[in-house]
């Protein structure tokens, strides 16, 4: 009941704030939220969900707001849209029960899952090798057979993809805006991949601790995202090597999987650490404190995944390999399992919202309001 009530309060607050924004419109140049807003007169729950995922939480509209605290209107778009987003991650999660589970304690749960899986894997591995032994281990498959890894990770990944698809389908169906055209898809992809809406509209960045612009967050996010993609590419290339070329791991540093994975891992470690660092200094006014554990939890898991992966690569041929492998695989498993319910989902929902906007902005205006 209280959760439902909270949802209604957040929705009512978002609608109140957006009605003030729609009568002001000064922030139109910052991002897509405001141009999308001006196409509407009313802000029901589905509309607010859509706008909330268009918001990249750059903070520009808060610093520029003549109605922000201490003004009695108390307008705070980044915060209320963050609250709405937090609500939608839970409401649209599939199955729903897992969504609320994660939201309650993101950081503890993430770390506990990483360590839990790692411990579980160590116990499993101890049947094949000595996890804490002194014997140098070179071949991962001596610890976990390749098929076993595939049997664990493939279904987990498949589940995550299905759950995310179910969630984003709910989101997509809420505000029907018509079919996606090729130009709309191209534009949405470009805006998502370039983090266009962290550029402040003027191209000079977004806000962190104060009203200054900075590219920090955009660049660090790029490091994490593209680092992640490099790691994904590394795994994909390795899969091709394994199945197509019958060339099983381990690979040398001169091979594509190692180069891609190495670069990606470093980028992710730097990016995640940087994001956690600038997050500490971010102006608290723009955030939803309730989501802090969820945000931090996700970045910490990514950091554990990346750091343990890097450590594993560097530990090649030493006795630390079994334990590090268990930690790495455990964190990857935790990451995959929580994907649909963690901050990972933001990328999927945001891309969907960007596509919605790319579709919508190509449609003629239905309102022709004239003001002073």
């Amino acid at each position, binding site marked *: 009941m209280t959760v439902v009530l909270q949802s209604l309060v957040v929705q009512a607050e978002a609608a109140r704030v957006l*009605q003030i924004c729609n*009568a002001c419109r000064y922030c139109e*140049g910052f991002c897509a939220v405001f141009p999308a807003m001006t196409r509407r007169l009313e802000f029901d729950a589905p509309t607010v969900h859509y706008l909330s995922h268009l918001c990249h939480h750059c903070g520009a509209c808060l*610093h520029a707001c*003549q109605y922000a605290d201490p003004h009695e209107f108390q307008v705070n778009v980044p915060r209320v849209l963050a609250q709405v987003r937090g609500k939608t991650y839970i409401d649209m999660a599939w199955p729903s029960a897992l969504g609320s589970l994660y939201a309650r304690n993101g950081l503890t749960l993430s770390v506990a899952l990483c360590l839990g899986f790692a411990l579980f894997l160590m116990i499993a591995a101890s049947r094949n090798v000595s996890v804490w032994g002194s014997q140098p281990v070179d071949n991962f498959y001596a610890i976990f057979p390749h098929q076993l890894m595939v049997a664990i990770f493939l279904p987990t990944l498949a589940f995550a993809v299905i759950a995310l698809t179910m969630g984003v389908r709910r989101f997509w169906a809420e505000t029907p805006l018509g079919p996606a055209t090729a130009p709309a898809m191209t534009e949405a992809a470009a805006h998502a991949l370039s983090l266009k809406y962290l550029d402040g509209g003027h191209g000079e960045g977004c806000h962190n601790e104060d009203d*200054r612009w900075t590219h920090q967050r955009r660049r660090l996010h790029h490091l994490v995202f593209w680092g992640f993609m490099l790691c994904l590419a590394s795994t994909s290339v390795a899969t091709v090597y394994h199945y197509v070329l019958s060339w099983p791991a381990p690979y040398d540093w001169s091979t594509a999987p190692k180069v891609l994975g190495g670069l990606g891992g470093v980028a992710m470690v730097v990016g995640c650490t940087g994001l956690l660092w600038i997050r500490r200094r971010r102006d608290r006014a723009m955030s939803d404190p309730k989501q802090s554990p969820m945000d931090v939890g996700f970045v910490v898991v990514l950091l554990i995944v990346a750091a343990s992966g890097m450590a594993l690569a560097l530990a090649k041929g030493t006795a630390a390999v079994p334990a590090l492998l268990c930690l790495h695989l455990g964190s990857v498993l935790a990451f995959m399992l929580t994907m649909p319910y963690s901050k990972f989902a933001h990328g999927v929902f945001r891309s969907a919202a960007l596509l919605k906007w790319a579709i919508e902005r190509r449609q003629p205006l239905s309102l022709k309001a*004239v*003001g*002073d």
Partner: protein
Amino acid sequence: MTDVLVIGGGNAALSAALTAREAGASVILLEAAPRPWRGGNSSHTRNLRCMHDSPQDVLTESYSEEEFWQDLLAVTGGQTQESLARLVIRGSQDCRRWMFRHGVRFQPSLSGTLHLSRTNAFFMGGGKALVNAYYRSAQALGVQVRYEAPVAHLELEGGRFVSAVLSSGERIAARSCVVACGGFESDREWLRQAWGQNAQGEWPADAFLIRGTRYNRGAVLKDLMAQGADAVGDPTQAHMVAIDARAPLYDGGICTRVDCVSLGIVVNRLGQRFYDEGEDFWPKRYAIWGRLVAQQPGQVAHSVIDSQAVGRFMPPVFEGCRAATLADLARQLQVPTEAFESTVNAFNAACQPGTFDHSRLDDCRTQHLHPAKTHWALPLVKPPFYGYTLKPGVTFTYLGLKVNESAAVHFAGQPSPNLFAAGEIMAGNVLGKGYTAGVGMTIGTVFGRIAGAKAARSAYAQPPEARGAGT
């Protein structure tokens, strides 16, 4: 001793402070408000009017000096000083590069304001973003900014500025001074006395809402006038808009305006119409409705539309009264039902057939109705009906200090050698009455820069012994 003391913390003050600092002067800026409220009325602005000979970045087509001047002449009814007005107009063409250098960014005109895309450059994020940028730049350049530092009194010696005395009693001496601390609209008592009592015994100004900062109390203006500074303008003249009666007493800003006046009718509390709602395009008329409402009994009026108007005007910040019948709307608006119904019926009957087009001066008008509605007159017949109660909202007052082309404050017709004025405190030199969008920020920026440059020069022109040691 400091070279230049700037009193005020909005656009004009910051323009002066930055310009003086760029000229090498040491600068202290005194903002009366605490930091979160800094920037005065500038925080509520969104653009400045600029002349330009050809399309430039966010500005379309061209807007010549002559056209700008004619626009100003028309809105002020000739109550302007041409030499100063032209100085502002010419200064408006090249100030954006300077603004950009200090961190201000521009954007194309906002939705619903296409009519301004040729004449007005919009600040990205609006005036508060501009104010933030200027304060950042001021900090980077080493301007000393002090918040919560309202000035109570200026010490003068025969028209020469000596020092400023803060409300706290602290005395700050400087070689020259720029006063850029706005009008007096938030001094309720001064406003009350200026407007006086009307024939019904009401004090109209008591009903006024202030659209801008609560810190524009006119203390420095009053102090200087008491010390013999020459004034311009009429204390009742101001930028006044009819705004939603539920707007906050201060700082309601842009969003409290009600833009459906030209799409319906406006009645006073007796249920009677009192002015042609369709006289001209709304952007050219919104600024007269504050005074019109101020002249009505109780200083209230009600803008009434039917469902045909929904979606044709900028969405209002507050929901209007909504009713299925005119009688119910009258009850909600607390106007006499019979009088209101007969006003609407008479209006509906007087509407002549025509082709409604809100984007031009169309032929939908009334016949044999007083006052007439000359455009966009559509019978109010489609329920639900909506009503918005209006009150006068003061943006800023026009009574100010007389200045010359150097922005120098005058005493008995003589310009002060080291006291200058910029922004709303001297806007009355250019704006005797009326308004055209964005001209306030143009005056503030152009005169702020002139005042800052002259103040720096004045400080450096003083003999070394007068300049003392250690800056």
